[in-house]
């Protein structure tokens, strides 16, 4: 008995301020997702009980779950708003709740500051060091098997679902999160990326690195891209142990 409207309960608020809940009702349309509901509110910023309010602020860009911008907590679960379909969230007209992620400082309404995730990419040297963008011929050959391991790792869109779910990621710890551990695995697999593997491992062995992971495995369950995070954590765990034990020999 799906109704002809969608009810949304949205947790709103300012940076550092108190939160308030606002309820909205928007017309239900086919193939609707959470973003299209928020767009309806922009066009009619009126709460369910008829009070005029302001449009909700949120982040989005691609609307096809590939940019990572629109992450929020929807019905208690962290995920992308653009791929959260109303027909699945509210088959019978149940209210849908939207909250900002909790592991990052709120900036306004559903917008949080995820700069910490981008900073971690700098710390772990998440790039392949090339000699320059000028012509140096073809790249290294890569087997189909390796490509099949690397491509899924490379789809991480820095969306934050994994760290939102991780019990060890919070404002009291420096933990950089499973996504950078997984990306380090990617760069260390690449035929030329491998040449700087040691420096990346050192970063993972430093503050906020792999030893902060308690292996709770929450992360892998919420990654929208199905990235094998726990597998990467155990691969890199072995690599860092090897480096801790024999690294001084290799450094020579």
């Amino acid at each position: 008995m799906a109704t002809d409207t969608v009810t949304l309960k949205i947790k709103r608020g300012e940076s550092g301020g108190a939160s308030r809940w606002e309820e909205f009702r928007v017309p239900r349309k086919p193939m609707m997702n959470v973003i299209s509901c928020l767009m309806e509110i922009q066009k009619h910023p009126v709460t369910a009980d008829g009070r005029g309010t302001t449009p909700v602020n949120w982040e989005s860009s691609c609307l096809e779950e590939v940019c990572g911008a629109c992450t929020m907590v929807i019905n208690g679960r962290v995920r992308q708003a653009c791929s959260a379909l109303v027909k699945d969230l509210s088959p019978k007209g149940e209210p849908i709740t939207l909250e900002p992620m909790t592991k990052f400082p709120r900036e306004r309404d559903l917008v949080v500051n995820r700069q910490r995730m981008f900073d971690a990419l700098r710390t772990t040297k998440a790039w392949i060091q090339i000699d320059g963008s000028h012509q140096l011929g073809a790249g290294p050959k890569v087997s189909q098997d390796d490509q099949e391991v690397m491509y899924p790792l490379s789809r991480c869109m820095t969306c934050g679902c994994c760290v939102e779910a991780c019990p060890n990621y919070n404002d009291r710890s420096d933990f950089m999160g499973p996504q950078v551990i997984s990306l380090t695995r990617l760069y260390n697999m690449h035929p030329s990326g491998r040449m700087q593997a040691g420096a990346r491992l050192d970063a993972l062995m430093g503050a906020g690195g792999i030893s902060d992971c308690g292996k709770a495995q929450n992360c892998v369950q919420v990654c929208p891209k199905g990235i094998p995070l726990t597998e990467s954590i155990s691969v890199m765990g072995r690599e860092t142990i090897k480096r801790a034990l024999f690294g001084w020999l290799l450094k020579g």
Partner: protein
Amino acid sequence: MAAKSSILTQSNQVRRAIVVGGGLGGLMTVIKLCEAGIPVDLLSLVPVKRSHSVCAQGGINASVNVKGEGDSPYTHFYETVKGGDFLANQPPCKGMADAAPGIVFMLDRMGVPFNRTPEGNLDFRRFGGTLFHRTAFAGATTGQQLLYALDEQVRRYETLDVEDDRGVTVPGEKMVRKFEFWDLAGLVLDDSGVCRGVVAQDLKNGEMRAFRGDAVCLATGGPGLVFGRSTNSVINTGSAAAIAYKQGAIYANGEFIQVHPTAIPAADKLRLISESVRGEGGRVWVPKDRKDRRHGRDIPEAERYYFLEERYPKYRNLVPRDIASREIFRTVIHEGYSAEGEQAAYLDVTHLCKTAAGKSAVRKKLEGVLEIYEKFAGADPYENPMKIFPAVHYSMGGLWVDFEKGADGSLKPGSARNQATSIPGLYATGESDYQYHGANRLGANSLLSCIYGGMVTGPAMAAWRDAQPQSAFDLSSTLFDTEHKRRVDEYAALGSRSGSDYSVNPYQLHEKLGEMMLQKVTVERHDAELDGVLSSLQDMKAQWRKAAALDPAAKGTINQPTVFLRHLDGMLALAEVIARGARDREECRGAHYKPALDPELHPDDPKAVGRDDARWLKTTLATFDGEGPALRYEAVDVSLEPLAKRDYGKVSAAKPPPGEAAAQGPANT
């Protein structure tokens, strides 16, 4: 200048260049500037890693000839200009096609996980408008993978120190400073009209700031949101290009808007189903019986009308996009065919998935693309033909940019003229320029043009900077303060729009704009309708002046509705450029199609000229006259290849599908 440092001012400020936009075009420009030793301020609406370029699925073209088919960069060049219906200047296209293999190799060295052949080489697939395997791809998210590779290189430059002319590190200064969540608000132009910097706004707190730059580049992407719903990311409003246009930059070929043949219709966005689906063997069809309401999967082979294959036996489902879109539009809208009674056609891969091996091969190559259908349309595309319809996708038009031709007839690298807009010191690259695609872009040529554009823009900006007698950093601050104040006041005025004088909701106005543009200025264009659009746009501009700030109390914090007013203003300005260009161009060329001028439909009408090279082999140049666009035209450089008919081997247009009951006749349009 010799006595002064080219890197530091006397007060030890670093002289930087500015790049606005961190998609593929902007990031490649940044890399080239850094390699030239020039520090950069990089501004972007969103973290650059979330730029619209992530959406590209299918791939990037380069004639590497891995399959030994005899492909060559020259063929790529020719097919690019032919695909663009000869409206693109040929020297830059030649430069791009020649550089393409090197670009793909560079991306591979940066770690893009491209798909591979058994030997470990790059794999290539087929795309529209060619018979060769020319498109390199990384799963179904090539754009994302390319963007990440460039993003990573730029992140590295965020950690590298600036060095002064003697090679000494400047403490605390990094080669790249990123300003993410910043919106362009204005250009700073000096008395002689030279661009000396920008004013931009921090979207997190509303603060406006003037940035000095010894060369400025806009790499701000396309204007898809002018059409409301499109395949574009929702940040693609074209606002930055509109600001440049309103400050005097020429906007070229605005009327050429690519409509992609295959997207999933929905309320918030028309999600693309990549051309790679057809490249890998996907077929487009409709039920022969116009009244057929069965599910696609239940319709037997003999009752399907594969209209692209029938009409184009050589290119079949891989004709260029403008042609495919028009054929689907015509078949569904005018001839009355449908998919389950909806205004849609089928795009089908189920025939490839009949065996487990077939299905797994399709999954391997197209999983990411088909996942989009599964996720957003909620049906399994391995079992069900997908329902699709054309959608606005790409703007061939954009800011006008120059090029310098070398002795070999190709673009001359290193010249300060390349990618220079009509405002001296201001450059443009990526989808926000107009240069490489003429009247229609070939699939997988855009990622290439963005990166090639960036490779050319960086050195061009460096050459410009070196040739300037005075650096922006040595000018009096008055110039910057004035533009800063103008934009601060402008924003304050927008932000205080409340009360009964401001009764219009800007998001509703945007919806109206989008619906009108989508209906009347896309696949088929009629003069009378375009006249209506142009007059409605005047009304909409008046309504914009009544549009309210929906959150006037929010100051010093995020305020998306007020910022949207600025973007809507830009969209209205570009809508007028697009519609005016379409109205005035009296021919059919590439994506610009007027049924009244199609000789196939009107064989006896001398006015139905089709493509009219004698009168219209010209670039449209729009300048802002204070109210709206004034149009002029400029000759196209076709110095390398003579014009040819743009023929993809169509057989008689009127041919009915075999086996169709003769009595049915064309449906009412």
